[in-house]
């Protein structure tokens, strides 16, 4: 059982890291946007009692992790369904619990790698004023918070048509990032967008990290919305999977 889990986790992690979409959309694009936004606005220019160089770093790491969870977990699940891979695995002794468990573990391992790579790249290029504790706490917040977006991915993965899944996944990822204030602060967006955005889990996800770099704690509403959405998506996807199995 354990060696099956280890082997499956290793295989799932390799598949994510080797995916060209992962390198492009989870590493290259968020880093490019980070350096672009930071230099456009001025790395040392202040925003919300911190600087653009740090503020945008948190936003873009959050953006990368939302995308990684939605596409590498959610869209991949749809493809595996469509390609018959799920059907094939069901005929082997690999149990569904080990399979999905190994997917979650490998996904979380990859999320940790993403955080380290993006934080390191920014830290090496810009002089970022954060204490070691802040680096670690922000990293942990973003890492653990990404579970909510894995739940969103699981919900997306219930779609049997992979093309629909790709389309919805891209809209979700971009929509959550832009309206959630990850590209431009909410205050610079049209006011109707801002009033929607502040309730989005993506905004709450980044806001926790923004608070921490400004020396505060994440707001309780950050915890509530992030956990609530995560639980809701998780329950919905479990409900859909079970109902499908029963048919």
């Amino acid at each position, binding site marked *: 059982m354990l060696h099956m889990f280890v082997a*499956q986790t290793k295989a799932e992690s390799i598949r994510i890291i080797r*995916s060209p979409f992962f390198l492009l959309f989870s590493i290259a694009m968020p880093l490019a946007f980070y350096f672009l936004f930071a230099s456009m606005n001025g790395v040392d220019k202040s925003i919300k009692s911190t600087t653009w160089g740090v503020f945008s770093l948190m936003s873009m790491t959050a953006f990368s992790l939302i995308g990684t969870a939605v596409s590498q977990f959610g869209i991949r699940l749809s493809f595996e369904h469509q*390609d*018959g*891979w799920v059907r*094939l695995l069901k005929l*082997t*002794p690999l149990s569904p619990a080990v399979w999905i468990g190994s997917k979650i573990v490998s996904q979380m391992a990859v999320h940790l790698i993403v955080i380290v790579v993006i934080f390191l790249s920014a830290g090496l290029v810009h002089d970022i004023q954060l204490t070691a504790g802040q680096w670690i706490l922000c990293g942990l917040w973003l890492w653990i918070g990404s579970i909510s977006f894995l739940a969103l991915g699981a919900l997306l993965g219930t779609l049997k048509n992979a093309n629909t899944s790709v389309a919805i996944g891209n809209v979700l990822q971009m929509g959550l990032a832009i309206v959630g204030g990850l590209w431009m602060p909410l205050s610079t967006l049209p006011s109707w967008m801002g009033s929607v955005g502040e309730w989005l889990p993506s905004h709450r996800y980044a806001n926790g990290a923004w608070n921490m770099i400004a020396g505060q704690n994440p707001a309780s509403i950050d915890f509530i919305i992030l956990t609530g959405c995560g639980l809701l998506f998780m329950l919905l996807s479990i409900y859909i999977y079970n109902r499908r199995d029963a048919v």
Partner: protein
Amino acid sequence: MTKAIECINLVKKFGDYCAVDHMNLSFEQGQITALLGPNGAGKTTTISMILGMIKPTSGEVRVLGMPSGTKELRQRVGALLQDVKAADGLTVKEVLQLFRNYYRNPMSLERLLDISGLHGDVKRRASTLSGGQRRRLAFAQSLAGNPELLLLDEPTVGMDIEARGRFWDTIQALASDGRTVLLTTHHLEEADAVADHIAVIARGQVVAEGTPERLKAQTALRTVSFRAANAPAEQEWLTLPGVEKAECNGERIRLYAQETDVLLFTLMQSEWGISDIDIQSASLEDTFRSLTGSNKQAIIR
């Protein structure tokens, strides 16, 4: 000895469509059996029920003496399905090692590579293999657990003639280790070349069953077809000397017999008023077609 597979009065309906219609099958262990039938005959549906992937509407399936789809069976049964794409991002070796990890008694990597002929491609990504190579990799995946029972759904689709021949040899070698193999095909020559036992499937039912020799015996039949002015009832046709099968196609009556001389003599002397006689030898293909075709008037003894 427990049967490898037993299907008892198996029925599967999809809405109003009856894909499998009261099928009864029973296969011995250690044999190669072919489910032979045209597309849409219900072969894949039957395999899916044997594997426990879909539930029968009614009836029962027992595999190696157990109800289908149990955890224990997943250790002991290997399956090659249609339309499964290769895993992206993994090499040939990684895919095979991953699958070997699922089983308590896996087949060695060396043997899997020998069987699939992919020794030279171990480091290639599975998704970059050609169609035939992918099929061979999928076949090796189905063998990863060293299965006692192997179910192959249209295994040779996409293989060229040479690859097909090699594949048949491999199947025979696997069966000589005491494994049971069940494969589906719509190629008569394939079933004939590889199987110990053939079950011909049409419209969700078994229409003929037996060794290839027994089924081929029917192909040694000749046919006599003619018009008859006043033919008796159909049941009487089969009482004529040597007639094994009879069918009626519009005005023409067609009789199948091993030996036609006596039959012709009897016919000429009868009161049937026959004319326009035509004598032919039926091919294996003809027999297959008449068994599986939609001609409901075929009467098989």
